[in-house]
């Protein structure tokens, strides 16, 4: 027990129960060794600990997870007679015995629950509850609670009690002197466990007087401050019917012990009634004076000053009402004590500082201008040209900043070069800032023009996009991080296809443009720090930041526009071709060839291209068609045939048309042709007119097909290098004497062709009739050729000699007909006049082994008539056709030099350089020829 009496150790406070003193002769007990400290169940059996989370001391059935029944599931049987009762399992069904025991989680023994625990003893809670009850609309609701007093106390109470605490006391060491001034309120009178009842009124004054020295008092209990909000509409401090007074008046003092009304109410009102000692009646503001009341003087509560403290009081020691929750009398304390309110008592060894701590000086933030808006706007960078000066101005106004037009550069915008310029220094020659410096003046100007155009476009584009974005969403990503992320994202998508070539946003400043391009390249490589890397290290932080912004935006702009555009358009096929083929214009020529053919209504071979095309295997299956190329895995057009319109195809034709290929091919083709022919008359025999025209067109198409069988054919095997070289040389020649060559020389072979055609169709008259026409022109032809010849000879004497030496090779196939012989003779006779041949021959040799490849395609274009004359025709070039038509009017003799390779080689260049005029001329000739043929037809 606590030592109370001894003066010496009055400061000593001892808690708890002391050990019983040892008896004499008894040996101290040995502590139980660790191994003996075992857990046993109620039957004394040893219990095994399985683990805190795996069952504790009880792990299922005989330390297994099983049960008595094992794992057999219970079977559910229910019949009409024997209904199975629905068993609802509660949590207890899954509990062990221990769980139901006293210390388990669901103890079965009867204990008082919290609801019935003694609240009366819990003063703190009680007070708060009563306070709430008193202010409640129906006061006294707690009355019943008060009557029922369960005996059970919480363990805390019991512990305290055992330590000597009594209810109503405060906790802490006892104090010597009773508080001097105690409020004469009934609530405090509960302390009167030490005081006799009824003696509270008079005792106050006497306390000081006869207090013995050795009497100590328990500290004052602390009343919790009630924070119950005011949730009613009564006036402040309104108190309804006080049931205590109504029922029992002030006589029921022992009730007061328990109820212990709120302090405020007792301060204001409670003491009045109590002090007057009224026996009976209902007091309260809600009621007037009853008929039974003998006194009605002070039923209306009168506020008198006497009820208030008029003197500043010292703090009551041991009161415990500190801090901001303290009653108002504490507020008028000394300054130093005021500070203490917050920290409590000053610890031993500490004293209050006499000098207040010097507070940190706080500088006020700068005052914002009135029209400041806390949103950052990116200032678009627009090149200051005359065209967009207005735009610049508008942009600058919207941004609220002066533009950086070249005249008013701030010093931040000057780099070393510009400063040097301003100072009049000569630029350093050693290291040019960009590649542009190396360009000649002319080139520079040209570049500048191009740049200005693109620049302007870019600026417009950018301005538009900026305006859109500005109008769409005012607050733009101002933080560099956000911007960085966004452009990085966008760029990573778009940079794969970015080309730095045509978008030059900083063309005005070459050094900057260079940095920008470097940045783009880095971006393309996927370097995250591309921006940082390419910036000029010599720049200031501000400049860097600005440039970083600009680059990012420019790249974003470019990437986005590029990607959106590229998603909308596919690449033009022509462009692809032009990548492969060096001379794209030949392709156009080809189209124009076709167009002219269309204009001439010469459909057929001229307008037809045939390609090898590989259908998908599945498509063949679905169409119930055998796969034409069972071995190939290719689908669509073979890729090597991309350059189908290139001039090089024409160049390869002389060889492909030559001997071994066509011999093999000619076997197949005639049948194909033949079927056409046999079919056609049957369809079109309705009118003679029709038939005649048909036959003409057939003839024409035959002629076309003959001379130009391989026009669309690919030349995958052609050595491009050679061709290019050859072309460059041949172009020179052609440029020199194009017209005379192409017209004069090229026109001849067609005679041969037509001879072949007409001979086979046993129509001699047509050729004879044409002979007369052709004679007149023959002379001219000869002279022209001579002219051209001479000029060429001088130029390319060596080349021609080489060519002539190699000429005989392709002509080796033996002639079938006398005509052929004659032609050869004639060719020999006119040999000197032949234009020189250069590369084609050389190429022929190289390509000889590759001829086989063209065999297949050749076959399709062969006709029956060709078959007869194929030997000589092989040498023909498709371009002869043009000349041939023209030549038909001319005499047979004029075709003397036609079949030579040299003429072929020249005519090869024809398609590339055919002028529209010439085409027109040829067209005319063809028409004449047709007319002539029509005249002949009726006779035959």
């Amino acid at each position, binding site marked *: 027990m606590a030592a109370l009496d001894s003066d010496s150790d009055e400061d000593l406070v001892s808690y708890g129960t002391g050990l019983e003193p040892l008896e004499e002769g008894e040996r101290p007990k040995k502590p139980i060794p660790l191994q003996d400290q075992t857990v046993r169940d109620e039957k004394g059996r040893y219990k095994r600990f399985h683990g805190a989370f795996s069952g504790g001391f009880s792990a299922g059935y005989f330390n297994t997870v099983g049960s008595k029944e094992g794992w057999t599931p219970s079977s559910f049987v229910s019949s009409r007679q024997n209904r199975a009762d629905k068993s609802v399992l509660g949590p207890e069904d899954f509990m062990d015995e221990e769980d139901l025991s006293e210390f388990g989680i669901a103890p079965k023994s009867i204990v008082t629950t919290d609801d019935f625990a003694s609240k009366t003893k819990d003063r703190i809670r009680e007070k708060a509850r009563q306070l709430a009850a008193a202010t409640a609309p129906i006061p006294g609701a707690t009355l019943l609670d008060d009557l029922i007093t369960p005996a059970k106390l919480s363990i805390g109470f019991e512990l305290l009690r055992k330590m000597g605490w009594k209810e109503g006391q405060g906790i802490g060491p006892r104090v010597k002197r009773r508080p001097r001034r105690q409020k004469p309120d009934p609530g405090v009178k509960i302390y009167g466990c030490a005081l006799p009842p009824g003696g509270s009124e008079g005792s106050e004054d006497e306390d000081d007087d006869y207090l013995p020295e050795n009497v100590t008092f328990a500290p004052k209990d602390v009343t919790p401050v009630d924070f119950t909000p005011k949730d009613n509409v009564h006036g402040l401090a309104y108190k309804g019917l006080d049931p205590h007074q109504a029922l029992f008046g002030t006589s029921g003092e022992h009730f007061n012990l328990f109820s212990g009304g709120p302090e405020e109410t007792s301060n204001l009102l409670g003491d009045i009634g109590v002090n007057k000692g009224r026996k009976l009646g209902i007091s309260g503001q809600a009621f007037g004076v009853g008929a039974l009341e003998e006194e009605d003087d002070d039923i209306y509560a009168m506020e008198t000053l006497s009820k208030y403290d008029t003197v500043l009081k010292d703090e009551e020691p041991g009161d415990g009402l500190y801090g901001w929750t303290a009653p108002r009398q504490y507020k008028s304390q000394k300054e130093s004590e005021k500070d203490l309110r917050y920290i409590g008592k000053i610890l031993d060894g500490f004293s209050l500082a006499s000098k207040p701590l010097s507070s940190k000086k706080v500088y006020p933030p700068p005052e914002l201008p009135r029209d400041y808006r806390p949103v950052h706007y990116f200032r678009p960078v627009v090149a200051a040209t005359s065209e967009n000066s207005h735009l610049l101005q508008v942009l600058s106004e919207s941004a609220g900043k002066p533009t950086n037009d070249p005249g008013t550069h701030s010093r931040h915008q000057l780099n070393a070069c510009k400063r040097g310029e301003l100072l009049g220094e000569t630029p350093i020659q050693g290291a040019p800032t960009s590649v542009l410096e190396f360009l000649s003046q002319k080139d520079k100007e040209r570049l500048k023009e191009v740049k200005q155009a693109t620049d302007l476009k870019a600026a417009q584009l950018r301005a538009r996009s900026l305006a859109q974005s500005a109008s769409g969403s005012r607050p733009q990503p101002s933080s560099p991080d956000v911007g960085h992320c966004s452009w990085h994202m966008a760029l990573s998508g778009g940079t794969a296809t970015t080309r730095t070539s045509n978008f030059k946003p900083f063309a005005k400043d070459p050094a900057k443009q260079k940095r920008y391009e470097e940045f783009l390249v880095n971006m393309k490589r996927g370097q995250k720090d591309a921006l940082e890397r390419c910036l000029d290290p010599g720049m200031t932080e501000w400049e860097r930041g600005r440039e970083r912004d600009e680059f990012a935006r420019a790249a974003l702009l470019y990437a986005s526009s590029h990607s959106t555009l590229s998603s909308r358009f596919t690449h033009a096929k022509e462009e692809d071709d032009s990548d492969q083929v060096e001379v794209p214009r030949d392709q156009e020529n080809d189209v124009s060839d076709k167009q002219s053919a269309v204009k001439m209504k010469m*459909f057929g071979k001229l307008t037809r291209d045939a*390609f090898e*095309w590989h*259908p998908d295997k599945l498509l063949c299956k*679905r169409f119930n068609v055998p796969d034409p190329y069972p071995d190939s895995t290719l689908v669509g057009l073979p890729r090597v045939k991309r350059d189908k319109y290139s001039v090089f195809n024409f160049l390869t034709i002389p060889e492909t048309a030559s001997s071994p290929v066509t011999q093999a091919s000619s076997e197949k083709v005639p049948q194909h042709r033949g079927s056409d022919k046999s079919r056609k008359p049957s369809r079109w025999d309705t*009118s003679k007119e029709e038939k005649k025209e048909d036959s003409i067109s057939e003839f024409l198409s035959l002629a076309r097909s003959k001379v130009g069988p391989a026009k669309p054919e690919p030349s995958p095997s052609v050595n491009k290098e050679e061709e290019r070289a050859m072309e460059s040389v041949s172009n020179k020649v052609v440029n020199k004497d194009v017209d005379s060559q192409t017209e004069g020389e090229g026109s001849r072979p067609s005679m041969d062709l037509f001879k072949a055609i007409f001979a086979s169709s046993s129509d001699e008259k047509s050729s004879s009739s044409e002979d007369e026409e052709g004679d007149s022109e023959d002379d001219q032809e000869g002279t022209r050729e001579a002219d051209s010849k001479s000029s060429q000879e001088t130029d390319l004497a060596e080349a021609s000699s080489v060519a002539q030496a190699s000429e005989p090779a392709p002509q080796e196939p033996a002639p079938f007909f006398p005509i052929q012989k004659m032609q050869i003779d004639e060719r020999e006779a006119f040999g000197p006049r032949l234009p020189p041949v250069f590369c084609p021959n050389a190429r022929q040799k190289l390509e000889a082994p590759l001829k086989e490849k063209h065999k297949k395609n050749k076959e399709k274009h062969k006709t029956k008539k060709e078959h007869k004359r194929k030997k000589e025709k092989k040498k023909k070039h498709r371009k002869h056709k043009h000349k041939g038509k023209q030549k038909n009017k001319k005499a047979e003799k004029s075709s003397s030099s036609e079949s030579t390779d040299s003429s072929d080689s020249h005519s090869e260049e024809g398609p590339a350089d055919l002028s529209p005029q010439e085409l027109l001329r040829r067209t005319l000739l063809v028409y004449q020829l047709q007319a002539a043929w029509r005249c002949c037809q009726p006779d035959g």
Partner: protein
Amino acid sequence: MAFPEPKPRGPELPQKRLKTLDCGQGAVRAVRFNVDGNYCLTCGSDKTLKLWNPLRGTLLRTYSGHGYEVLDAAGSFDNSSLCSGGGDKAVVLWDVASGQVVRKFRGHAGKVNTVQFNEEATVILSGSIDSTIRCWDCRSRKPEPIQTLDEARDGISSVKVSDHEVLAGSVDGRVRRYDLRMGQLFSDYVGSPITCICFSRDGQCTLVSSLDSTLRLLDKDTGELLGEYTGHKNKEYKLDCCLSERDTHVVSCSEDGKVFFWDLVEGALALALPVGPGVVQSLAYHPMEPCLLTAMGGSIQCWREETYEAEGAPG
């Protein structure tokens, strides 16, 4: 190969207006006969496809499911399914009876101008302005086409299919014929953007209409010009052309509100049939009878020969 002897007097041409159907589906983009000519399909600009009996004028079913206007449709050989393509870049395979979408093929990058079944309705060929023809497999569930024919350099305006060939007309002015049996691609240059192509019924010729207001009959095998037909007006629109049921006449829409008939052999204008004030957008010719369907505005017209009696109308 027994070709009919052309009669001295032209065969009967459909010039009697039998019916005018207001389709109620916006502008009729295309009108197509089914395989036996008893029914017809109209492609509306209100995203619907309608199946009609044109002779009776009864609406049989409406197929809705396209996301944009329907531009072309075709029926399968067994009348069990339909395919259609439209401005929503999708090719749709329909079940005729239930009216449900069986498949929706997506992959074209542009409007689908034309769709065709192959002979066995196992493949749908669709030509689009993205300059590709895509061959969609109706048998498998693959979302990708079997093959994409991307040789054209401009939009595909018309596609026709025979048993082993695919004929395609493109705005780049070329007629391409993919011969699956030979494994060859034949490209005939016509010069002007091609609006419509078709095979002749005997499969020997191709009829090509182009934006230079000219129709050309080309020999299929050689590409030679067999005939030229002019007189109508076709400068802007993608108008249809076809051959009559026995290949005796060439028929074409015109922008001046008429349908032109030319004698195929002589090339002479046989009839200019006035349809209405607008542009004749589409037409379809009955596979067996001299019966013509034309589409103008939001309605279609059914034309029969003069001697035709409505009571004895088959189907």
